[in-house]
């Protein structure tokens, strides 16, 4: 008797284990024989009843356990149920019973899968199951059938286990069959020999017991259904209802995890006739409600990550970021620092194999920013992800480095420490208000080889000179979507416009950074671009843009962990070398969402608008001959640039437009350039004239080269816009300064038309 509870109440056991054991034939046979007729009569009802029970219990009608009353908790798979039923069939030797059971099985199998069917069933038999009031009739009709079936089952069970009367003592839910088994089995056996009255009485008792069992079973089923495999999307009414009530967070969380589960095994777990899109939309709505993100961010994130990973990411953003310290190797060593901090109540560990200076603080009695060691400049509080761009940059001693967005100074001081205060660092920060923090950190950490200035990064090439430094670190201003755990406001405040603006600034800064670097530097020639954002328009798109606009190529970051960047995303196709960039996520690496890319500049010439024309190549030769003289370089580029005139910058922007970025810079640029051009043109008159003379011939060469160089300079790009624009520019020869100016003004107007005609020509 005790076994039965296990069999029935065991959580993961498939359909009645005990029942599967071969049964002695007597009792069941007897009961079958006796109740054959009844059971036959009931047979028609049986399936209905059992189906009803199962159907009603679960909204989503999980395949009802073959013997619901047996109390299988985990909705057994249909196959298992079928198997179980078949076994039961085998076990029960009676043909009638077999027939019944077969019917039962078929009905149950047929009815189970679909909600509609279940609902129909449940509709028809709901009363029987769910409302005790109607139980009387239902029971009357059903019970006989149930009884018939149950008797069989009960008998089976009984015989497998001990036939005892202890079942009555156990809870009905656990052991209902045992009780009824005893009574019905014995009674039926007796009654067949004796009067019908006894049988009727016992049947009544059995019915009552069965009814209670059924109720218990239903409860079980409802509980099971909550955990059932099948998940049903909430209907419109339910959603509206929810909208009126305050958000039920556990419910939302549950629904989110359910939908994720369905999506991960969609073909098996889906509701029929419900499209994947519906699930995804519901998931998005739930995530927005539960985690508090705005539409835009959720759209972007669902495009980037599969459902399971998305939830992991969002969960990790809810946690507190780990606190990290970086040892200042100018003043101390990590070992010594740890030895000094631990007695102060810090619980520290080295941050990982990948860094020799990092420490992660699990907890501390004092704030990490208030210790004597901190004030003495022995360490810096810094996020783990901030180590990465500097490690990728790998500054050497006695190099010239520029940090274009230096505040608050963590990376600058790390660079200084790596260089051991040799060489020179230009630490630039655009925002005056953040300057004092930068200065404080630099001086506190004892970095002495810095020049701190307050420029807009785009101006730096003019101030410091083009091609004048060895390495540049650009930790670009971004939307900060990788640091949501530090600043939850980002969840709701970012929009497509923010990303576009940031991407625009980032592109300009990156081009300026590239212009600063000297490709012929003996030890350097590298630019590291990093952002604390995970959005593709700010990361891969910017790098791709730079690859097209300048003579740079991607190289390995030197970071062996982290995911490679995207090569393709939705409709975008980036250069294949973008695999060398690295992405970091909080749920993978336990650090801020981060992106790092390392570029190597292999030539100081600027490919003008995606076409390295022969004139520019000729100019390039001149330039290469001279060292990094800004004047000469400008001169050589002048003629080409003049031909392309204002459009140069504009065409530089064009590719970005095709990449669905901003149009803002266009109107401003040409004006500025005009002024520059004017100043330079005066000095460069003769040289420009020379090139002008060759201009017409050069234009043809240029067009040819265009395609050629286009392929070489920008592999994998599909931009024809710039080509055409540059082509048009070539055609216009520049004769003298004044005419150039007027011509330039004209070009502005006619630019579009020429572009179109060029396009047509090119494609021919």
């Amino acid at each position, binding site marked *: 008797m005790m076994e039965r509870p296990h069999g029935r109440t065991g959580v993961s056991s498939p359909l009645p284990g005990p029942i599967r054991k071969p049964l002695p034939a007597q009792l069941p046979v007897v009961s079958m024989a006796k109740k054959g007729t009844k059971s036959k009569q009931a047979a028609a009802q049986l399936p209905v009843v059992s189906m009803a029970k199962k159907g009603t219990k679960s909204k989503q009608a999980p395949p009802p356990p073959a013997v619901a009353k047996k109390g299988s908790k985990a909705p057994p798979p249909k196959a298992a149920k079928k198997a179980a039923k078949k076994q039961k069939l085998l076990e029960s030797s009676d043909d009638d019973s077999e027939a019944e059971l077969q019917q039962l099985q078929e009905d149950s199998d047929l009815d189970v899968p679909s909600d509609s069917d279940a609902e129909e069933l449940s509709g028809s038999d709901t009363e029987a199951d769910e409302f005790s009031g109607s139980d009387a009739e239902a029971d009357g009709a059903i019970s006989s059938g149930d009884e018939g079936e149950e008797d069989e089952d009960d008998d089976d069970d009984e015989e497998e286990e001990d036939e005892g009367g202890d079942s009555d003592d156990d809870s009905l839910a656990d052991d209902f069959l045992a009780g009824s088994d005893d009574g019905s089995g014995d009674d039926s056996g007796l009654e067949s020999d004796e009067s019908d009255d006894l049988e009727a009485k016992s049947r009544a008792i059995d019915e009552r017991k069965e009814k209670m069992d059924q109720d218990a079973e239903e409860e079980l089923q409802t509980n099971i259904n909550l955990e059932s495999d099948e998940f049903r999307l909430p209907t419109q009414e339910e959603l509206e209802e929810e909208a009126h009530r305050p958000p039920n967070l556990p419910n939302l969380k549950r629904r989110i995890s359910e939908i994720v589960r369905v999506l991960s095994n969609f073909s098996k777990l889906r509701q029929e006739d419900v499209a994947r899109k519906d699930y995804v939309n519901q998931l998005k709505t739930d995530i927005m409600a539960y985690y508090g993100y705005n539409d835009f961010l959720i759209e972007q994130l669902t495009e980037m990550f599969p459902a399971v990973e998305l939830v992991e990411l969002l969960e990790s953003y809810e946690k507190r970021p780990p606190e990290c310290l970086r040892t200042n190797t100018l003043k101390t060593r990590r070992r010594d620092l740890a030895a000094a901090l631990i007695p102060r109540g810090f619980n520290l560990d080295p941050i990982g194999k990948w860094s020799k200076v990092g420490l992660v603080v699990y907890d501390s009695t004092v704030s990490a920013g208030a210790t*004597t060691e901190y*004030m003495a400049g022995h360490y810096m509080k810094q996020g783990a992800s901030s180590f990465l761009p500097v490690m990728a940059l790998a500054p050497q001693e006695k*190099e010239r480095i520029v940090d274009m967005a230096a505040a608050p100074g963590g990376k600058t001081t790390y660079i200084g420490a790596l260089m051991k205060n040799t060489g*020179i660092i230009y630490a630039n920060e655009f925002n005056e208000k953040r300057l004092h923090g930068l200065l*404080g950190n*630099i001086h506190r950490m004892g970095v*002495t080889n810095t*020049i701190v*200035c307050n420029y807009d990064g785009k101006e730096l090439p003019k101030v410091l000179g083009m091609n004048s430094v060895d390495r540049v670190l650009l930790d670009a201003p971004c939307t900060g979507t990788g640091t949501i755990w530090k600043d939850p406001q980002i969840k709701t405040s970012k929009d497509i416009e923010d990303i576009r603006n940031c991407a625009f600034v980032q592109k300009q800064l990156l081009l300026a950074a590239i212009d600063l670097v000297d490709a012929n530097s003996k030890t350097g020639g590298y630019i590291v671009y990093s952002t604390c954002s995970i959005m593709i328009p700010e990361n891969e798109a910017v790098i791709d843009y730079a690859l097209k606009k300048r003579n740079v190529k991607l190289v390995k970051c030197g970071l062996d962990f982290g995911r490679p960047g995207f090569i393709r995303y939705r409709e975008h196709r980036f250069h294949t070398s973008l695999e060398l960039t690295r992405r970091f996520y909080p749920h993978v690496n336990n650090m801020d969402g981060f992106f790092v890319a390392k570029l190597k500049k292999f030539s100081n010439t600027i490919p003008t608008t995606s076409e390295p024309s022969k004139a520019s190549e000729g100019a390039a030769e001149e330039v290469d001959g001279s060292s990094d003289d800004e004047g000469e370089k400008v001169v050589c580029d002048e003629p080409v640039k003049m031909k392309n005139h204002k459009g140069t910058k504009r065409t530089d922007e064009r590719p970005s437009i095709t990449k669905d970025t901003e149009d803002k810079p266009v109107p401003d640029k040409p004006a500025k350039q005009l002024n520059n051009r004017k100043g330079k043109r005066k000095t460069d008159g003769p040289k420009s004239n020379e090139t002008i003379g060759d201009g017409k011939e050069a234009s043809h060469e240029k067009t040819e080269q265009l395609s050629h160089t286009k392929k070489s300079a920008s592999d994998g790009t599909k931009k024809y816009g710039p080509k055409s624009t540059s082509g048009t520019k070539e055609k216009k020869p520049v004769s003298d300064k004044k005419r150039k100016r007027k011509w330039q003004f004209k070009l502005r107007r006619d630019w579009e038309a020429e572009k179109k005609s060029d396009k047509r020509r090119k494609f021919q």
Partner: protein
Amino acid sequence: MRPLDEKETTMVFEKLFKFTGPNLKHLLERPAVEGPDPEPGRYCLRLHKNRVYYASEALVRRATAVARPRLAAVGTPIGKFTHHGSFHLTVHALDLLAAHARRRVWLKPDTERSFLFGNSVPKSSLARITENTKSGDGVVVMSMSDVPLGFGIAARSAQDCRKADTNAVVVLHQADAGEYLRKEEELM
């Protein structure tokens, strides 16, 4: 950014002399580490917006490219000229002074906090003091683990310190590392 003139230079050197004594010339004549040039230059002092910066010549040369309103700092600042023309050393000079100063004072561990909050050093906090300290000498205040905490002027000579009361001031506070946290506008 311009080199200091006579008067300014004397004022700066006077203050520094209190700490370094004859070592002062060492300060300016040691080979410079900074700068990308292979041959080390020397260090020099430059004045920019009333602050005096101590930087190597290579750095200074390159800093001339930066426009005056845009330059924030070159090398390390060591002090600033007040409105009426006197010169005060600031906490940023701590590393430099700690390297070159002759007189040091060590504080007991529990009393570090008090000094870092800007208080002067009473005799009770004193753990060690350099032997031949005279009154009026510049002193660098260190912790027992040889971490420089700040600097000041010795109020008493070493012998007097032994005889003094426990609460008598031994070192007059001039600057301490806690100012990095307390005074954000230090450099601006």
